[in-house]
């Protein structure tokens, strides 16, 4: 859509300047980053942080950091968070160096173990002291893993306060994705695939010039504040009906279904990667479908990137940020104004909009990106776990505990009953 050459140039210059680092933390995180295939030009650094030297050696990632050698002698944390914590604390300087001078840091971690659960929040805390935007992809252990689950929940709570965007991928949910009868191991590869698609979509959006271009400022505008809740969804389609297929997959993505409260999203970033055959009519269709799905009540930031190598093939990725929860059950409700429809933003601009949301005390500065000041991390804890997310409609109500299970979470989900939603 951009015809203004000067504008295009600006975009390009900025794109090449952008420094992105994707850091795998712990064993599972390193594996996921190992499997990443970033097919965009530019400065995307891959790094791995682990206590287990042997596992790191097997990785093809360029930048490797063994932490806590003095603590574990390179033998891993053995699932113990204390060991992981000591390890990461002993290598503070190295981590500082690892994350220095980045625009965007993406942490990839599998929570529930010793290294990842301890190191990820620690790295996030250090990253919070820099000016970089920090996003996290975190897989969560299965419900039946008990102790690992509680470790993961605690770590998740800490992470949430410190990063701009946190995408959690509960293994229970991922298991629903695989074919019937497949093992739990399958969930890991599903997780890695999704992380891969999410990261790739982000990098493509940031580093390639788009038909409807979204740059780093757009991403910033979605993730202005730390804390809160992030919704991530991805869908792809190919063949004659590729728009419909991609939209279908996008809306069916289980990560998208963390309940039923789209009305509370502050901002939604939609990125579409398609081939040259993706005309404006199709883009319009996608936009209107997405807007319809979100009831058009939110700010949708829309980006479209054309990848010449694609033909009849489409990838859509959604990142949405929901604000911090108000105190959950308050007797005297002050929600009088919420019935008023929110302002609808076109979300089509070439540059990012400035948030006018009254919840945001410090709007992003257009020219220079928001500073730490914008992200006062004193917003209270958001009680959010993998299961919590599944409570959907009941999210804001008191937990429904019965024999250590939350009855608000769907029964099929807790019992691991697989629901096949595609007709055979």
């Amino acid at each position, binding site marked *: 859509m951009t015809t203004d050459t000067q504008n295009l140039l600006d975009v390009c210059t900025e794109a090449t300047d952008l420094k992105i680092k994707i850091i795998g933390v712990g064993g599972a995180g390193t594996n996921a980053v190992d499997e990443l295939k970033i097919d965009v030009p530019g400065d995307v650094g891959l790094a791995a942080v682990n206590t287990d030297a042997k596992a790191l050696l097997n990785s093809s990632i360029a930048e490797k950091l063994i932490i806590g050698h003095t603590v574990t002698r390179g033998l891993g944390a053995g699932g113990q968070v204390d060991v992981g914590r000591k390890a990461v604390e002993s290598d503070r300087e190295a981590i500082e160096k690892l994350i220095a001078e980045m625009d965007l840091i993406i942490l990839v971690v599998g929570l529930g173990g010793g290294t990842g659960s301890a190191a990820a929040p620690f790295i996030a805390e250090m990253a919070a002291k820099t000016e970089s935007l920090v996003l996290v992809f975190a897989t969560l252990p299965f419900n039946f893993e008990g102790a690992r689950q509680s470790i993961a929940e605690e770590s998740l709570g800490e992470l949430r306060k410190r990063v701009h965007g946190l995408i959690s991928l509960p293994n229970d949910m991922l298991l629903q994705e695989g074919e019937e009868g497949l093992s739990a191991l399958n969930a890991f590869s599903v997780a890695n695939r999704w992380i891969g698609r999410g990261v790739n979509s982000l990098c493509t959006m940031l580093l390639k010039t788009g038909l409807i271009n979204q740059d780093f400022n757009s991403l910033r505008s979605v993730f202005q504040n730390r804390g809160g809740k992030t919704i991530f969804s991805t869908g792809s389609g190919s063949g004659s009906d590729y728009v419909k297929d991609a939209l279908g997959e996008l809306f069916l993505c289980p990560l998208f279904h963390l309940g*039923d409260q789209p009305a509370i999203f502050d901002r939604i970033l939609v990125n579409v990667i398609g081939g040259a055959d993706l005309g404006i009519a199709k883009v319009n269709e996608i936009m209107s479908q997405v807007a319809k799905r979100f009831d058009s009540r939110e700010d949708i930031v829309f980006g479209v990137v054309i990848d010449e190598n694609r033909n009849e093939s489409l990838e859509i990725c959604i990142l949405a940020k929901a604000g911090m929860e108000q105190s959950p059950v308050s007797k005297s409700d002050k929600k009088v104004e919420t019935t008023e429809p929110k302002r609808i933003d076109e979300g089509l601009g070439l540059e990012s909009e400035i948030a006018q949301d009254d919840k945001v005390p410090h709007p992003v500065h257009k020219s220079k990106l928001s500073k730490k000041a914008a992200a006062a991390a004193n917003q209270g804890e958001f009680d959010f776990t993998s299961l919590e997310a599944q409570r959907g409609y009941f999210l804001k109500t008191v937990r429904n505990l019965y024999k250590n299970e939350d009855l608000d979470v769907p029964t099929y989900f807790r019992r691991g009953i697989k*629901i096949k939603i595609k007709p055979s």
Partner: protein
Amino acid sequence: MSESKIVAAVEIGTTKVAVLIGEIVGDSELNIIGHSICSSKGVKKGVITDLNAVSDCVHATIMTAEKKSRRRINEVYLSLTGNHIEGKFNIGMANVSSSDKVVQQIDMDKAKEDATGIHLPEDRVYIHYIRNSFSLDGHLVEQPISRKGERVQVGYWSVNGDKAIVEDYLRIINGIGIHLSDMIISSIASGAVLLEDADKEAGALVVDIGGGTTDWVLYRNGFIVRTGVVPVGGDHITNDLSSGLRIHRKSAEAIKIKNGRAYCRSEDRNEGVWLFGDRGIGDCEFPMAAITKVIEARVTEIFQIIKESLEEAKLFSAAEIVTGVILTGGTSRLEGIDQVAGKVFGLEARRAEIQLGIDPDLRKPEYSTALGLLHYALTGQDEKYPSVKPAGFFRRVMSILNFD
């Protein structure tokens, strides 16, 4: 001239607020002279989440019903539900005091005091004391007074609730300036109207599955021996479907009503169900099995939880629940739910049928609690009725709230 009193039964449910207005003539005749229903706002799982919204909704519904009946309401009977309601079974004991060892009222009072005088924590309040059978020297007796014996015992199922929540309900009714005569937990109200005395004698489990809660009551030998609330209802089925099929809540609700079944059959795998049926963008086909598996898991779990509570209380024995399981409440409309209940409990299970000579509109399972409240208004004062109100309950709560 026979006295007539206008009473309103108010049920503040998760899905709807229902108001029935009854005219009590004398002490045995009840005419339903008005009713009104409105979708509930501000209630989840039977718990008020938005007091103002609930208040407005209840007031509007009561006003409408009052207008329809063209009579002023004298008093209100309100049903209570929610996870906060708990109960405890206590046995009270008293040694017969008179020298001739003939049981007198004073001994009975002592035994009752022994069973019901147990103090609750500050934040709890008694809602019902439900008397169970008497025993005299270890033998069950209908009425020990005037009989000879050493020791009388009496069991009480005492129901208590969270004080703050109960007060919220009081506030709502008092806010319209109508006298709140009594609060009755939903399960007891439903049970009162659905069961004949003979059913209660034979033993029956009434399960009222509403939108946000499942309220149940077990009768044995004519007594209410246990009540319970499972904070799970039809809303959960909708939420599960919304999550499982990844569709909007509204679509999930529509699918539940249109295609829902409480159990999964093997044929369901090959049967397709369309979300909207217009085959447009956004419409998609689900295997029926996806729908029924989600519902089956949930419905089975609800019944299992009830069964577990009964088993833990050592009250679950098929031989003493001869009438079987009676299902009511809006969710009892779900196809096949009686079969699932039958399977889980291993008892005969059926949907309740309201036999009273009333408007067919009011015979729906959704109304059984409200009808039960009216039934209670008519018979509740009866001495023989096994539910006794704690003395001064309302006065005590009212004084906390500075109501007169």
